[in-house]
């Protein structure tokens, strides 16, 4: 067979481009791991910051990020799953459905800083929550809502129609059918969405900038009306605001590494879970 040189050239070019992207990703991760790993110690993870973050640890920032993401997911998960159930199981192709879909797409496209402005206007000022975990979590919850709805919807659609029909044929009501014959199978897929959501909430800076984040707060919060430190904001502060650049560089890398590990662990978990779920659905067909 004649070799097609144009094709070989094109394939190599596409391969080069693709692998250069992965090389850049690998380099970013490598650079942060290499420079950050030396900083990680029990003291760093469990200590409180001192000297404006140049010394001590980042515990309050870790705890703050955990609280904010948990708060966001507690609000967003039930709302998102319920929305997805409505859209896939109940919704007809009507005007209302179309409107909801448009809203979800719009919400997914709202810039994170605009979520921050909105959170400031609605939660911090109008509801008078002040700069607080509550305001920050609710803002993040709205931000991750589209992700959860879309992944939950995918999970529900992946459940074969025959499962539903069997139950309905036996005289079960629609809700009973969903509860017993649809949700259990869609659960892993929905979990994927919520894990992705947590990861995204943990890594965002702009929305919490205006609604919750504190520069220096060397204690743990004891109410949802408290401000907290958060890892992304702490990294931003360390990267741009501390006067002693050399002294604080290792702390920057350490913080970046911890943030990266937390967020990537969630994403990786979601990816693994999703591929297992997809395989399972396929094998059931």
């Amino acid at each position, binding site marked *: 067979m004649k070799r*097609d040189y144009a094709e070989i050239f094109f394939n190599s070019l596409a391969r080069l481009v693709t692998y250069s992207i992965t090389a850049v990703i690998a380099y970013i991760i490598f650079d942060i791991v290499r420079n950050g790993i030396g900083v990680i110690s029990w003291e760093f993870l469990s200590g409180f910051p001192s000297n404006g973050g140049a010394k001590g640890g980042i515990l309050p920032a870790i705890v703050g990020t955990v609280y904010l993401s948990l708060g966001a997911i507690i609000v967003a998960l039930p709302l998102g799953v319920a929305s997805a159930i409505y859209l896939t199981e109940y919704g007809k192709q009507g005007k209302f459905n179309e409107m909801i879909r448009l809203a979800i797409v719009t919400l997914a496209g709202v810039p*994170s800083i605009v979520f921050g402005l909105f959170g400031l206007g*609605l939660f911090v000022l109008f509801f008078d929550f002040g700069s607080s975990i509550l305001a920050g979590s609710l803002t993040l919850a709205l931000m991750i809502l589209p992700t959860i709805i879309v992944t939950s919807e995918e999970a529900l659609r992946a459940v074969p129609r025959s499962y539903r029909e069997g139950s309905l044929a036996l005289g079960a009501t629609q*809700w009973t059918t969903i509860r017993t014959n649809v949700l259990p199978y869609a659960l892993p897929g929905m979990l994927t969405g919520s894990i992705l959501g947590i990861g995204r909430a943990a890594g965002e800076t702009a929305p919490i900038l205006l609604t919750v984040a504190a520069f220096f707060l060397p204690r743990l919060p004891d109410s949802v009306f408290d401000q907290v430190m958060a890892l992304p904001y702490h990294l931003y502060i360390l990267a741009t605001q501390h006067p002693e650049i050399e002294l604080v560089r290792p702390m920057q890398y350490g913080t970046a590494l911890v*943030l*990266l590990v937390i967020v990537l662990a969630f994403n*990786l978990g979601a990816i693994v879970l999703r591929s297992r779920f997809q395989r399972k659905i396929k094998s059931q067909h």
Partner: protein
Amino acid sequence: MWKEKAIKFGLMSSASVSVISVALIFLFLFKEGGDFLSSPGIGSLFDTRWTPVSFVNERFGLYPLIAGSLLVTFLATAIAIPFGVLGAVYIAEIAKPREREILKPFIEILAGIPSVVIGFFGLIILAPFVKNVFGLYSGLNALSGALLLALMAIPTIITISEDAIKSCPKSYRQASLAMGASRLQTLWRVVMPASLSGIIAAIALGMGRVIGETMVVLMITGNAPQITASPLESVRTMTATIAAEMGEVAFGSEHYQALFIVGIVLLLFTFALNIFSRLFYRRYGNRS
């Protein structure tokens, strides 16, 4: 039966939260920023200077901020398109199945890296690099920002474009190959045109992500609110302006209102890109 109805009603209310949120976002941005439109008036937004803190004359011209956002966005998109589209073609059409299974999640990981980490990386590694390559006095400029933003748009473009390419029916390819076209000809003349609307949708979504990104541009573009078309100059984007100045202003002041107006303008930009993307996405979605 009332239970069924109650559940349905509950689910419907949850679903309408998205609609209500979108309405509230527009409502609250206007509530906080709307007064600016009557005094000092909408006209003062059409100005070439943004000097919100001034002893002479506080000016709230949006031109420099919009120009900054557009410059960075177009540059980033121009960089991201070849990488994103070729990457998608490679993963969808050329890579072996095993390779694909590794490449796809790896690129999705990139989408997961928090923007502040990318900004941090840019500040320490990329900006000095750009400065040295171009022999500049400072690496904090539109180009550095655009390079990082392109990196952030690439996963979006790859994932959606790959979807579009893969959804091109097998029969098209088989017909083309059966007529004696090479694989490359099939790819360019048949598969790509058939997936074009999906790819355009992917690019528009990528642009939406770029224009709305905050932390990276705040950290890396140098933040000079000037109107320029040079990639090597420093610019200030709409997002960075809000993030940097919002903390400072007295609530209710003109400056505070102006920042909400910037938020509205930004929202309109992303909204338009989204609608645009959706129009194309649906076209390709209907066909398959």
